[in-house]
């Protein structure tokens, strides 16, 4: 932990500046970077996950909703610092707004997977913010698609598989078994290959079927 004093007034000015950044990813990262500056002395490093991370890794607004999901612990001392920065906590304690801005923050959980990888981004302000890696976001989407059969995680998985580097693809193959998403990964790759060959996209009912099939044990008991 650092004993450096924190200049809250200066950080409030930085938050206000960050909230006006035009690009949604850069705005989100600049906001999280200011939070990092009050959280890091407590040993806490927020990591952007969810839809904003999908936006970061695809640069497409197809699924963009502008809310910012971060994985971080929120002990009382950090909650107090977020309040000093101007954030207002909602009743359920996981959601934060910044009044008179379009900033909405949610801390859905406090820990990443033990094997997670993150990308640390150096920003225009000189600050840094962390985003969950493309491979980890893809693993999350595969997990959600397998569990629910829903269209959005299915499309996001197909969306994010497109353009993976060879190295990222190999990392995905290595990490899929630990998340138990190997079969759904194969299914999503098959959908992507079929589409590339001119096939029709699966409808909602077919996506549910694909997810159900992926959940079945490979060798059913007698």
């Amino acid at each position: 932990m650092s004993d450096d004093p924190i200049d809250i007034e200066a950080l409030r000015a930085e938050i206000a500046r960050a909230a006006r950044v035009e690009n949604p990813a850069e705005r989100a990262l600049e906001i999280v970077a200011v939070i990092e500056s009050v959280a890091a002395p407590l040993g806490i490093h927020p990591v952007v996950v969810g839809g904003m991370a999908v936006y970061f890794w695809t640069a497409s607004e197809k699924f963009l909703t502008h809310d910012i999901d971060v994985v971080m612990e929120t002990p009382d001392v950090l909650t107090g610092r977020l309040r000093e920065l101007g954030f207002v906590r909602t009743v359920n304690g996981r959601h934060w707004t910044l009044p008179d801005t379009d900033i909405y923050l949610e801390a859905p959980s406090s820990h990443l997977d033990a094997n997670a990888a993150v990308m640390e981004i150096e920003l225009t302000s000189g600050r840094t913010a962390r985003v969950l890696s493309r491979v980890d976001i893809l693993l999350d989407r595969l997990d959600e698609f397998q569990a629910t059969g829903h269209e959005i995680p299915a499309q996001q998985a197909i969306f994010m598989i497109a353009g993976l580097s060879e190295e990222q693809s190999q990392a995905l193959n290595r990490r899929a078994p630990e998340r138990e998403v190997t079969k759904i990964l194969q299914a999503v790759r098959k959908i992507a290959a079929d589409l590339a060959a001119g096939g029709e996209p699966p409808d909602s009912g077919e996506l549910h079927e694909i997810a159900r099939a992926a959940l079945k044990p490979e060798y059913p008991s007698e």
Partner: protein
Amino acid sequence: MTIEKMTIEQWRREAPELRAKSEKALERFKPARRQKPRHPAEAEFLRRIGTPERLIGPTATEPE
């Protein structure tokens, strides 16, 4: 946990290619509709900033 590093300038340079590859993969899909329930306060915020209803999805009846 492993940490890699990049700059926002690098992201800006790579963004057009990332966008083109991703969007091409979904070009024949109909726009997806969120089916997972969302917290009422979050849904209200998203409506206020003009988010399409299909991305807001259903609102949870009981706040989580």
